[in-house]
């Protein structure tokens, strides 16, 4: 695949509909289709369609922005800036069908920009402190259900920043545009897919390693 320009439609790539948490049987439109439909209705004069679009996409934008290590208040600012940019510049969007990709790309770029300023202002590197919450040990954590989530969280927290960011963005964006993602992460486009696989492999190894330790510990 060549380098895509901004005006080209983002390709679904290898992310299946199941990947997005949306049923893939065709009975229900995928999130990007719903977003495109709402955006179209808003542009046609249905002002309430924008509210629905905001409700649909804000949680996704939150996770994408938080992947960049911004604190919660800054992350909210970035999500808001993204929406205001959409309202102000909607006429310049060449591909209304791809509005969900436009939103996540806009959010990622703003998160990156704001994150750089935050890191410059904070020499202790907030990015490294923030996402690595200490693994919290409690009685509940030993319960089987909790244990599963706890183990996964511990494994995720152990990954390096780039892997955490990439996996979180890919997990929440329905059809990540790898060309833009590569550009935003300063990576060659061809390396996003392999990096994603390496990060997944590392994560699986950590989960399995953790499970041996846990089962040994519990006797």
């Amino acid at each position, binding site marked *: 695949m060549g380098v895509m320009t901004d005006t080209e439609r983002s390709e679904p790539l290898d992310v299946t509909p199941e990947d997005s948490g949306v049923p893939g049987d065709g009975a229900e439109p995928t999130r990007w289709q719903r977003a495109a439909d709402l955006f179209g209705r808003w542009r046609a004069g249905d002002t309430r369609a924008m509210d629905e679009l*905001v409700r649909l996409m804000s949680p996704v934008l939150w*996770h994408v922005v938080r992947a960049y290590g911004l604190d919660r208040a800054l992350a909210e600012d970035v999500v*808001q800036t993204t929406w205001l940019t959409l309202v102000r510049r909607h006429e310049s969007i060449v591909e209304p069908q791809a509005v969900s990709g436009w939103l996540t790309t806009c959010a990622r770029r703003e998160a990156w920009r704001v994150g750089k300023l935050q890191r410059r202002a904070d020499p202790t590197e907030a990015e490294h402190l923030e996402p690595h919450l200490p693994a919290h040990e409690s009685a509940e954590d030993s319960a089987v259900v909790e244990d599963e*989530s706890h183990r996964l969280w511990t494994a995720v927290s152990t990954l390096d920043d780039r892997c955490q960011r990439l996996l979180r963005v890919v997990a929440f964006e329905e059809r990540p545009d790898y060309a833009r993602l590569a550009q935003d992460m300063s990576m060659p486009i061809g390396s996003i897919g392999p990096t994603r696989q390496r990060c997944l492999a590392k994560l699986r190894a950590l989960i399995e390693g953790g499970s041996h330790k846990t089962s040994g510990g519990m006797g």
Partner: protein
Amino acid sequence: MTDEEYDAAADAALFARLRSVWDERDPVPADLVDRMVAAVAVEDLSREYALLTLVESAELAAVRGESDTLTLQFSDGRTSILVHVSETDAGGRRVDGWVDAVALAVRLAQGEREWSADPGESGRFAFDDVPPGMSRIRLVIRDGGDVREFMTPQFEV
């Protein structure tokens, strides 16, 4: 199922688990969506706002010969806002407002120019320094589970 399909399904399952773990450990703030709806609503000029009407206007002559202040009340019968205008030292206007609901976003417009205020929990908001002139206030409030928009008629500050 081919090996590749199997791998893709396994990846998809792991991504689904990742989404739920991130949702659980770093949840979207409870009011985020409402605040975003409000921020977009005040930005979107094509929207229709319920017009509030002027209920009361009181111009108070200044005590001790200082600048005049103006108090206005607008309402639609259910939601009311009180606006208090005073003159700043530099000759600008300070506009304090109270709305008897949770304000999510507030803007003051003079023609093409606009200012936004950070509404507090108590329904208070303030524009510290705006030039004198015809103004109107647009605001978005939370009413139970609903988000509603209002606009005042123009008034002179």
